[in-house]
């Protein structure tokens, strides 16, 4: 028999539990909104600080000591050079490594080591890659603080991201496609090149674009490699000195005059525009690709 007192206690407990449940729900919504609100505040504040400064001259002007005359042209061109060179170096290498790991490597100690190694590389702080680039590319290979040295450094930095993304997309290709290709007499490489890579291309592209957007925003490793804050001309050759947008922004933030803060905000708008556009394209491809196999 349950006494009336006990029943009351239990009812009370249920009420308290329901109340706690509702309270957590409110807290959860609040936390989620805090994240989103901060995102809006960040972007809004930077827009207010910098949007008035952006005009055609700001994009095409060379750097200057006077904030109102300074532009981002050389930094923007530097970023473009880095983007193109990094794509050419990291894209084929990363995809090739992923194909090897997914299609060729036999399960065993060797492939286990490769896997642990890649997972570890993905967690190495970017500034450490800068130290690697400084010693190997800048000093030992004698490339100097050039666009090529910077791009090679960033390529190594994003290699693990490309490899992981490519492996995931190759894994998602249904086995039936592979079987059909082999049944028609195709060799292993023919199957990979003609069937698996086209089928996985959406996912691979998403991963590559996301990793490149990260490379465009990187500052620390390029500072260590020796990219300059002031470059009088846009690079015209892979071995030229260079600056990139994030370094230009960093340089402007560290100056006391208020005009440079405005410049920094304006340059940030351009950098964010590039980053968000690349992310948007990547998400678009991901969605398109996900539908394909469902």
């Amino acid at each position, binding site marked *: 028999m349950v006494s009336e007192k006990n029943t009351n206690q239990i009812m009370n407990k249920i009420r308290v539990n329901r109340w706690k449940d509702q309270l957590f729900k409110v807290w959860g919504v609040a936390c989620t909104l805090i994240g989103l609100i901060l995102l809006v505040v960040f972007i809004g504040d930077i827009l207010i600080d910098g949007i008035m400064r952006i005009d055609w001259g700001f994009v095409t002007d060379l750097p200057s000591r006077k904030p109102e005359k300074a532009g981002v042209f050389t930094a923007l061109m530097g970023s473009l050079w880095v983007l193109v060179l990094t794509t050419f170096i990291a894209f084929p290498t990363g995809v090739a490594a992923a194909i090897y790991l997914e299609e060729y490597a036999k399960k065993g100690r060797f492939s286990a080591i490769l896997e642990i*190694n890649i997972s570890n590389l993905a967690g190495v702080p970017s500034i450490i890659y800068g130290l690697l680039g400084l010693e190997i590319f800048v000093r030992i290979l004698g490339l100097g603080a050039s666009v090529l040295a910077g791009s090679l450094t960033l390529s190594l930095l994003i290699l693990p991201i490309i490899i992981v993304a490519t492996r995931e997309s190759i894994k998602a290709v249904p086995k039936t496609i592979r079987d059909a290709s082999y049944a028609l007499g195709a060799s292993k490489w023919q199957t990979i090149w003609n069937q698996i890579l086209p089928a996985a291309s959406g996912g691979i592209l998403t991963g590559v674009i996301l990793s490149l957007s990260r490379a465009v925003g990187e500052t*620390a490793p390029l500072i*260590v490699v020796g990219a300059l804050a002031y470059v009088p001309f846009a690079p015209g050759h892979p071995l030229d000195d260079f600056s990139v947008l994030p370094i230009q922004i960093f340089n402007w933030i560290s100056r006391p005059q208020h005009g440079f803060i405005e410049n920094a905000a304006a340059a940030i708008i351009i*950098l964010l525009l590039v980053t968000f556009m690349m992310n948007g394209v990547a998400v678009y491809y991901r969605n398109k690709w996900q539908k394909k196999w469902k």
Partner: protein
Amino acid sequence: MRKFKEGVIEKTLLTSALITVAVTIGIVSVLAFEAIRFFKEVSIIDFFTDTQWTPLFTDKHYGILPLLSGTFLTSAIAISVALPIGLSISIYLSEYAPKSFRKTVKPMLELLAAIPTVVYGFFALIVVTPFLQGIFPNLSGFNSLSAGLVMGVMIIPFISSISEDALHAVPKELREASYGMGATKLQTAFKVVVPAASSGIIVSIILAISRAIGETMIVAIAAGQQPRLTFDPTVPIETITSYIVQVSLGDVQHGSIEYRTIFAAGITLFTFTFILNTISYGIRKKYQSNYE
């Protein structure tokens, strides 16, 4: 012929895969090579016990402790922001939120991690520090508090996204059994789902810590360049990463002791992140097949 071609292709692919191993060997040997030369001039005992780090002054001291305390301080502030918020978001999105809400909000939060860190640095220095100075008038222009807080916002998606994936992977049956016993969503979340997903949640936290330790631009911009052994969040400090940036911006001769200090600092940083990454990899491997 066909067999030969296939063989060449396989070798080419293998070479690409081996590049990743070469990168690791490169990192370790470059750091070790320069660090060993550093320790020929500086005693390793001084390095770990001296409480001053002044390689760029005339009175030189090479104690890593002030840089470590700076790194620890900013990371601790960041984690204490990101952990409760990130975890609450992940539980809310996985257990409470409608599916459509979850699908739109998750990529938006992940955008926080896509913003270049130099932008967060700008925000910490130009917006957050002046705002906090309104509340704490004796806050310095450079301090670990605003750098840590902003870094915390940056790593929220690391915790929320990976934890949410782990919570989401917990089978529905476990939840239904708990609801069937009369438990509320909150009780189910904390007593059934979170424990079942604990390995994934721990991995997300370790990754976030590792990320915070290695973060460079936010602290280089907003936390100052004054190495000091303190846990006071209102004064300028210096982290391992911002010291490397400071030296790289200056004109330091290759082969000088100043040049080698950045590698000694670098190998210390690398050791910490390497340990954290290895632990998280181990946990992931051990529990990977739990609910698959």
